[in-house]
């Protein structure tokens, strides 16, 4: 280890970094460019060192716990590389924060449709965590924005797939595979994202029957809330927003005031077919804070540890019987030992393992983080 330590110190001199909140590791390194990222992963694979990619730390509560030898911080892989507002595309480094990117895009009234409250989160992190925004109801999940990706694979190759245009079927869809991969394949060093124009006007309408609102509103950005009260988020031309708000008949305010994730010691998501969101809300214990994405099939919840146990046993079991899942987004260490982050493993574990091995043959990228210990 000593000679390895001095080798890494020499090769990555000046790239040492901090990753507040990250687990202890022998090396915390922020590669300064994609080649350096690939070189670090090559060394990791050569020496069997476990790697944990780290962006803003916003989604690190997901999946099985990892004890890394190397924390690879993406903060220097940042910045806008190629921005074509008229083509509705932007290429950014994976370490770019979502906030910085959206600020750049706002100048042209565009959006990458990433999480509305990104915190310190990075673009690469949001993609790796498949962190979709509330606006998913209208624009689809984050994976549908992925046009091109360059992965530094677990064994230090730089693999680019997809293209920098809004429509493309050239080769296998590795960009979408990156969404939700949680660092298991490699590090997203840069990516091309499909952009959407922001509507000229927007409004938030409070309704008491979200299921009815889904039938009345045409292409709302989102319908979010709980069983008693939900908000319909509208965007479009001024006249359309006004007319849609009138159709809905609730109290309307101008602008979009997005819900925050519920607060609590343990947080997670129940995912079910969209028509069962009401059922999921009924089954969640009274002690849990909830925000549901109606029409999507998702309920974000948070609670103290005891109600969380009920969610991770009873609600999880029910959600799996209807084809869904109940996953942990964040929890105290003890709870990860008590409950699997994902629930029952998927039936395609053999295939998942082989896909991971295609990108990370030495198995150094976040081993055990994906479902089934992959």
């Amino acid at each position, binding site marked *: 280890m000593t000679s390895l330590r001095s080798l890494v110190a020499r090769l990555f001199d000046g790239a040492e970094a901090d990753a507040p909140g990250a687990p202890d590791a022998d090396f915390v390194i922020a590669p300064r460019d994609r080649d350096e990222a690939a070189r670090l992963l090559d060394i990791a694979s050569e020496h069997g060192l476990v790697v944990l990619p780290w962006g803003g730390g916003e989604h690190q509560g997901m999946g099985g716990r990892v004890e890394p030898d190397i924390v690879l911080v993406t903060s220097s892989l940042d910045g806008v590389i190629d921005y074509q507002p008229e083509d509705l595309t932007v290429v950014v480094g994976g370490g770019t924060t979502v906030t910085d990117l959206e600020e750049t895009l706002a100048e042209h009234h565009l959006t990458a449709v990433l999480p509305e409250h990104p915190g310190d989160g990075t673009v690469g992190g949001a993609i790796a965590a498949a962190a979709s925004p509330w606006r998913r109801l209208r624009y689809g999940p984050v*994976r549908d924005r992925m046009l091109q990706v360059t992965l530094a694979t677990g064994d230090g190759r*730089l693999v*680019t797939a997809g293209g920098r245009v809004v429509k493309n079927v*050239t080769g296998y869809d590795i960009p979408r595979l990156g969404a939700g991969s949680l660092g298991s394949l490699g590090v997203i060093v840069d990516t091309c994202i499909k952009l959407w124009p922001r509507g000229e006007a927007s409004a938030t309408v409070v309704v008491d029957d979200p299921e009815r609102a889904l039938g009345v509103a045409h292409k709302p950005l989102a319908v979010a809330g709980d069983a008693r009260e939900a908000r319909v988020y509208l965007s479009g031309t001024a006249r359309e927003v006004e007319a*849609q708000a009138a159709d809905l008949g609730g109290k309307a305010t101008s602008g979009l005031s997005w819900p925050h994730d519920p607060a609590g010691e343990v947080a997670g998501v129940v995912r079910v077919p969209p028509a069962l969101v009401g059922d999921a809300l009924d089954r969640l214990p009274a002690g849990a804070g909830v925000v549901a994405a109606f029409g999507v099939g998702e309920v974000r919840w948070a609670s103290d540890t005891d109600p969380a146990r009920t969610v991770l046993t009873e609600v999880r079991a029910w959600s799996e019987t209807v084809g869904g899942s109940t996953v942990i987004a964040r929890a105290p260490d003890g709870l990860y030992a008590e409950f699997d982050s994902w629930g029952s493993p998927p039936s395609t574990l053999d295939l998942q393992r082989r896909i991971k091995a*295609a990108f990370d043959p030495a198995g150094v990228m976040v081993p055990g983080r994906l479902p089934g210990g992959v």
Partner: protein
Amino acid sequence: MATTASTPLHDDLVSALDASRVRFRAIDRALYAKDAGVTPGDAEVVVFPESAAEVAAVVKTAARHGMPVVPRGAGTGLAGGAVPTEPAVVVVLTRMTGIVVDEANRMAWVEPGVINLDLSRHTRPLGLHFAPDPSSQAACTIGGNVANNSGGPHCLAEGTTVNHIHALEFVDSRGEIRVVGSAAPDTPGLDVRGVLVGSEGTLGIVTRALVKLTPDPPAVRTILLGFPEVEGAAATVSGVIAAGVVPAALEMMDRPMTEAVERFVHAGFPTEAAAVLLAEVTGHPAAVEAEAALVERIAGEQGATTVRTAADDAERELLWKGRKAAFGAVAQAAPDYYLHDTVVPRTRLVEVMTGLYAIAERHDLLMLNVFHAGDGNLHPLMAFDASEPGTLERVQAAGAEIVRLSVEAGGVLSGEHGIGLEKRDLMPLMFSPMDLDGQARLREAFDPGGVFNPGKVLPSGSRCFDFGRPVPDGAWV
């Protein structure tokens, strides 16, 4: 081998299905060795399974005989994706036509042989439709749409097939029936569903798809615009999107194509215009009104000489008939045509079109253009007579130049037709050897023995890097 005598493979397939659905006469093998493109292949035997279990039995039987498997829908593909490049079992999925609608979730489980338009007709009474609408939608199948990640005019706002697939049931290379994805969002684990879509039958055979059904828009307006210059039409497309509106469709035709269509359909398209745009805005009635006004204003500023809004459904259907019949209309100009499919950044449309005309002139070919201008998806079409010696060679040489021109402008090889055989050897224009190796490894993860649709998508020799590190225990279960 070109024999009509029964072989052990035939016998085993007959016992897996039945004799009426296993064909190996010369005429069947010739019929199913070709798609709608120009390259013929070599079908050893053609089978017509009626269930996932039968598909699985076919895959297992073929494996026992060391014979590759090539899945096939209606054969409307133009890139050779369903053409067997070596003797193969061709699996025709057109007999699997079940549809089970889940209205509450706005989804449907659809078997691969369902014709695209039939699905939307089936769900029309519910006010729902399947959004991807390729021009071949009256003939092409859902299985083919999944294999090619098909688009169509309305994918500008709604996205291509992959955005409309929640889950897939497929038969893997070992003949096992698997399901990936779910009616619930974000199934835990890697998104295998997303990789299967667009994989052109090289990773597995899809036997059922859980598709998203989209509510019919409450209001629609279709506007025909004619411009004296291509530049004005292209600037209108960019201007509308820059103004924050993504219309449901923005389709462009150049003058040669407009003339051909007008002779064929008599829809009143302005044949004097250098470029015609067909714009469609859909949504809430208030939105449609405002967005139609915006399109008309920007078109006016860009010099449009024709602005015609469809007065009713009949006129709207006529305008779309003109657009979707474009390829049929070309048959009047010449007996054969070769249709290309590339994408360029929308802002490069004008310069790329100028380049396209130069290529056609250089090769002395008649070129017509009809394409999805909104997303920069070009479809240059060369009309010719293949019986004239040397013509097909000129067409193919021009085609390769078209692809190079598109890639040089920052574009890609294909927007919706796929790579298949046609563009396989052009993949290095876009991807480095290491990129192609990455794709080849992904393919191996699904199909280590190269059972499915060999010789497609990736050029031979793509799997070229081996860092020689040991694979951890259990990784290749």
